[in-house]
């Protein structure tokens, strides 16, 4: 079976599992929306401040909860399931790619719902041309988060306390993604080009993709 056929099958199955379990849209997303409600309360309903911070809160929650989405999929892999895949001859790089594909799709869906909720609750002041900027940066951030979460899941496979360890790995590596995403809209507000920030996001996503694919096989061997 070809690399892409295996990757597609892994992604398709992950999406099907999510459609049955509903963790992303029935558990993670409502939690994130509740978190959106907390900020205005904490700020004493100062509407001008709430409008200012809206997009920043969106990025922060996207990172925090988006990472949970990507990590959740890898964490669901039991030793037995990994054994089955190894004996079926599944290329670890294809599994990584498939995981990234499904996690990207789910993260984008999550971010879409969160954006609508944030817009309704915060009525943020957005700069001109925000829609294109937001779509591009959200898509690149979703890819980067999916890669980062999947890579962290692979790095910690088979370890005890893997959830804590994965979070520690992810936090510093997520900084370029957060910077790229948040600063691109800041640049728009200042009437500057968002290209440098989009390139930072794209370079981060590319580096994580190369790293994930290159490390997939050694990581699988190391986990045995």
């Amino acid at each position, binding site marked *: *079976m070809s690399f892409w*056929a*295996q990757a597609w*099958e*892994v992604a398709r*199955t992950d999406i*099907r*599992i999510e459609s*049955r*379990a509903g963790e992303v849209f029935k558990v993670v997303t409502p939690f994130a929306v509740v978190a959106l409600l907390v900020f205005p309360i904490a700020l004493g309903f100062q509407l001008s401040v709430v409008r200012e911070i809206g997009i920043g809160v969106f990025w922060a929650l996207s990172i925090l909860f988006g990472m949970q989405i990507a990590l959740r999929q890898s964490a669901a892999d*039991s030793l*037995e*399931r*990994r*054994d*089955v*895949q*190894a*004996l*079926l*001859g*599944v290329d670890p790089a294809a599994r990584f790619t498939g995981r990234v594909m499904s996690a990207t799709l789910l993260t984008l869906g999550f971010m879409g719902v969160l954006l609508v909720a944030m817009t309704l609750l915060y009525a943020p002041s957005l700069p001109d041309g925000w829609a294109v900027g937001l779509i591009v940066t959200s898509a690149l951030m979703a890819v980067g988060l999916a890669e980062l979460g999947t890579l962290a899941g692979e790095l910690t496979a088979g370890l005890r306390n893997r959830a804590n360890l994965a979070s520690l790995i992810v936090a510093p590596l997520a900084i370029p993604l957060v910077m790229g995403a948040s600063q691109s809209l800041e640049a728009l507000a200042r009437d500057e080009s968002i290209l440098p920030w989009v390139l930072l996001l794209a370079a981060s996503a590319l580096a994580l993709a190369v790293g994930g694919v290159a490390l997939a096989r050694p990581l699988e*061997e190391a986990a*045995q």
Partner: protein
Amino acid sequence: MDTLACLEGVGVSLGGSPVLRELDLIVSASEIVGISGPNGSGKTTLIRALATLQATDGGSGTILGKKLGSPAVRCVRPRIGLIGHAPGLISELSLRENLIHISKLAGIDPNRVDHALEVVGLRGASDRRVSAASYGMKRRVEAAHLLLRRPDLLLLDEAMSGLDSNGVDLIRAIVESTVAEGGAAVVVSHDVDHLSRLAQRTLHLEAGKLRAGE
């Protein structure tokens, strides 16, 4: 006679503790080897080492002609069939969907899944989710998985526990047909009587070392 698996002086340590010590084992084509042993003796670790899924830290070996620990061993993994302690199935999918997923990943025609389900007696329950299936049903799905893949080297770790007599007969038939086609099987069980009826030779594993069974 062809050797399908050969371990020479193999050791395995888990968490710094030796589990297998200088273990020797040869499994020839058309042979069924039974392995018994008390809890914690290293039976599951041995099965995982034979499946090339457990790194060894001493000795050498070949599995289906490829050197253990070498990258080439990946090529022979699709020729190995493993039923371990816990089924490696996806809880959110149905029994049938699990087998279709496995078929697609292995490059097997998914149209064969229904026939395999029929052979293992699960045709009527094929749409049941794994989370709602009994342990015996999950074991039968793993048997169907073996029927789909037809591996040359079967590794069964307490594969018959939790199965009714029909299920035990089914696993036995798969083992016998594999061996008849020139493959081999290593069967691990606590049940020494059962092993002696199925296997051509039995070995006893204790404290990480193999010796001839009684």
